[in-house]
């Protein structure tokens, strides 16, 4: 089965390139496909070999669907190895971060819901209390996971997750590493106001 040829549309390609370049602050067209980033990417094997160089190539050729829906966008651990060693100074980790936001804006179902839920729960907790409360944000994160499993009626996964989390909690308690109190920062209102303001601006 030969993969169907990709129709290259210069307009589409340029608009995707401009959007990603601007929002990530990276000059994608500078890439000369040396594949150093692929060799250096620690999660290269986990993403089904969708490595940073191929991600840039998707964007350069205007393949928006492929660019937004691939494993690298979600599983990139933002370790910035690719960008630090890129001879043309392209920080692909910033590109995956941008593509995560673009995927969300395009209401695309994240390929790795757990990762998306983790980061949204973490940040929400941070903004809500001013400081991240581990017990609370992990709770919300697990709830979101459980809800998804519930919808899929995957009770075994829920049970398993519950078991690992409780075991983990117990060892943390045993080693007196479990923090019980509630961390807060009074000035969190300023952060929340900034967040609202930014959302309004983005909305325009």
């Amino acid at each position: 089965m030969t993969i169907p040829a990709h129709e290259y549309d210069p307009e589409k390609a340029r608009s995707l390139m401009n959007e990603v370049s601007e929002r990530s602050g990276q000059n994608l067209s500078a890439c000369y496909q040396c594949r150093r980033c692929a060799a250096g990417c620690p999660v290269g094997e986990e993403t089904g070999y969708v490595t940073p160089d191929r991600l840039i190539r998707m964007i350069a050729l205007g393949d928006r669907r492929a660019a937004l829906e691939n494993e690298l966008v979600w599983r990139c651990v933002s370790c910035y190895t690719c960008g630090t060693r890129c001879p043309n100074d392209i920080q692909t980790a910033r590109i995956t971060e941008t593509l995560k936001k673009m995927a969300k804006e395009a209401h695309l179902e994240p390929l790795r819901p757990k990762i998306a839920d983790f980061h949204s729960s973490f940040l929400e907790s941070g903004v809500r209390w001013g400081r991240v409360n581990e017990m609370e944000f992990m709770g919300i994160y697990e709830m979101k996971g459980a809800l998804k499993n519930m919808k899929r009626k995957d009770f075994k996964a829920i049970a398993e997750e519950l078991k690992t989390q409780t075991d983990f909690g117990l060892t943390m308690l045993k080693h007196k590493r479990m923090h019980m109190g509630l961390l807060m920062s009074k000035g969190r209102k300023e952060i929340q106001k900034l967040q609202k303001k930014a959302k309004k601006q983005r909305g325009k």
Partner: protein
Amino acid sequence: MNQEKASQTAKSGSVLIVGGGIGGMQAGLDLANSGFMVHMVQKDSSIGGTMVMLDKTFPTGDCSMCMISPKMVEIGRHMNVNIHTLATVTSVEGVPGDFTVKILQKARYVDPNLCTGCGTCEEKCPKKVTSEYEQGLTVRKAIYSLFPQALPNTRVIDRDNCIYFQKGKCRACEKFCTAKAIKFDDTDKEFEIRVGAIILSPGLDRYNPRVRQELGFERWPNVVTSLQFERILSASGPYRGEVKRPGDGKHPKKVAWIQCVGSRDSHNANPWCSSVCCMYATKQAIIAKEHDGRIDPTIFYMEMRAFGKDFDKYVDRAKKEFGVTYRRAMVSAVREEPGTGNLLLRFAQENGVLKDELFDLVVLSIGFQPHTDAEAFAKIFGIEPNKYRFAKTTHFNPVDTSRPGVYVTGIYQGPKDIPETVMQGSAVAARAMALLGEARGTEIKVKELPPERDVKEEEPRIGLFVCHCGINIAQTVDVKKVAEVGASLPGVAHSESMLYACAQDSQDKIKKLVKEKNLNRVVVASCTPRTHEPLFQDTIRDAGLNKYLFELADIREQCSWCHMGQREVATKKAMDIVRMNVAKARLLQPVETGSVGVTPAALIIGGGIAGMVTALSLADQGYHAHVVEKENELGGLIKNLYRTLDGSNVQPYLKDTVSRVTAHPNIIIHLGTEVQKTDGFVGNFKTTLSNGEGFDHGAIVIATGGVEYQPTEYHFGENERVITQRELEKRLAMAGPRSRERYVMIQCVGSREEPHNYCSRICCQDAVKNAITIKEKAPDAQVIILYRDIRTYGLREDYYKKARDLGVLFMLYKEDKKPVVEKKGYGLSVKAFDYLLGKEIAMEADYVVLSTGLRPHPTSEKVGVMYKLTRNTDGYFLEAHVKLRPVDFPSEGIFIAGLAHAPKNLDETISQAQAAAGRAGVLLSHERLGVSGIISKHNRDLCMSCLTCFRLCPFGSPFIDTDGKVSHNEVKCVGCGICASVCPMKAFQVNNFRDDQIVAMIDALTESAS
């Protein structure tokens, strides 16, 4: 005001050359051989530069030292060249023709006049220091010479590491120096010289990969730089040429090269491409494989930039014959496998799958970068550096710096390979000759010689001198015994042994003995004739003997060095060698060396830019230049070239050049005609043209140029939307691109595939240039370039980056999956396979632009036959030596410039044209040309004109004379001896190598054996 002042004071007839690498040496020799005094300033303790560190060179595999040391010996002995080592220039004042230069020379602590370079001091010196020359792989002593063949080979004391200078003890070197040459009280010296022109050839530093810790240099012992690997490969290197790895001395089996270390990296290192690393990595892989067949070489590269003559063929040979694996994927980090010292490289394979592979040795192909003091250097000479601190030059004057009278050659002008450096060496020589034309010959020394004694009737009275050469011979051969036995040989009137036959005092002794004992032949038993024969010949000539009454018996390279330690056998062999040379000496005859006049004019075939630039340079030097052009107007290929890559405007330059050529009094232009016939020989050619005109001239420059390949692929000719880069360039110059227009360019059309497996070198530049023009004028235009390797080498890499920044899309294609072009509506559709996404891409184009290559000019065949010039398989003329004589032909007096030699860019053509003018200038600067003594003599009585010699002689000296019989033109003869060996009637005999002499040597050897 300065300009007139200079012309009042007479111009200086000497030239300063800053930097003693191959570029500086070429310029020095050209100038010294054409009547100029040369001052060569070198900051190291010996000349040689980077090239002497190399083991072999590409694409021929010639050993670098064998090529460069004859040039070093020649420049070392040249009367008109003063070499100031350990010296740097501190200030330069004045104007072209009259510069005053201050030079600071560091103390050497060894007296050059006394030191004979025997090396005993180095052996006895206790202090070990890491050797910079050997790239830190091994040690040298505190008193040392840079490398075995150093020139001058006077030792030098490294003050910072010498125990005496640091702690006041030791002085071992002084104790053991038999020549008493050590001078601890030596001081730095400052002196001033006056020169007419300055040539900068300081070379470059190499990129130190230590700053890129992820590559593991100086962290994992088995990661070496490419220059360290050159030393590992070299027979004079730390491991004597045995390929071992520094970590544990094991023989590496899997060896990896990582390309572009320090180059093509505007983020972490230097943005330019260093031009030579792709090829030297390929060469190192091949040579390593030759040393040790088990080695499995892999080269990790980004683009294989094999743009030079026969380079692509060399890379193909590496792949097919030597099994070198080329991986188009860059490595991110080099990790070491704990415990084994092996190195783990991870890379992305073509299908995207990541692979870990273990290697025994990793070689980092490091590039060049300007010296750390490049800014200060430029300030001293008052020249403008470009933004990367190279010397700033323009496209149309590639060897002129921003300051008149100061010229630049070699990699200080931009990264380049050895042939281009040598070309620029001759080019700057030409520029200096043009500037100081009238001062030629005003400051050089000429040697007076006593009259030659007539020894024809005398019985042979041979003087035999057997040399110790310090320890080099005496350690293995019983020199005294050889001298004693030698004394009894028939014809020997005097025999003795000497500590150093080549030393100044021994020379004087030989002269005294020749006069006192009325010796009429001299045999010296010492080292290789290659380096010292001219020295001894001049000595006996000073004593009034014809210099060919001399024999050098090599009992060092051919005896003591290769039989180290076997005393009796070596001594017996030394006696045999001496007996043979004495036997030959008995039959030596004096040889008269004639000379021929030189017509100070040159014939230049081809009126393109190469021919015109050569003509202008020669005319400026004061010679007449006959430009013969087939068409009815000058200009050649660049008539349809508008802009160069860096935006310089070509048409005004062309018009200006044509007008200067037509206006120049020394240039005679013959349009619409070709060369009918050329007779005569170097210095005395006579040419008649097809239009009947005829003239005499002393040199010939072949500038027949090339033609653009007319493509047949991709529906060219059928569909008018398929155009070539030239047509696109014209179209852009006239109308400019329209917005949203769609261009797809295809590279390597008609190049790099059989039967034309070579790179035409200019098409990548053309494509990138036009792409930039389009994108700058119409940012929303689509420009896609389908390429096999973008070869924007050297400082041209900036434009490849600029094209990408402007949004030009570059897509790789391979020879076996070429793009497919079809008609689609009004425009065209192009399909190509994208290797990164692993799927086909369909594009649309209003224009498909073919980057067509170059072909040799159709007249090359005729011109080649006319002047007996051979051509390579691609039809380009074959120069005398691909590395060190890129502008000469084997036969004297004929030179080459421009596309006729090989495809090249406009600035490189201009460099080569100026170089050809330089080389021709050297020849034409002599009133008379001395003919070498060691040539073939022809006995017409024995000759039956069987024409075998006529057919075989590569230099065309036998010719069919007016009486129908074969005659021999001694001026063309270089004494190679082919005719003497094939002549059935023994009518040819080479002076000093006659049959009877050689038979006498053989008999002398066989008699003693029986």
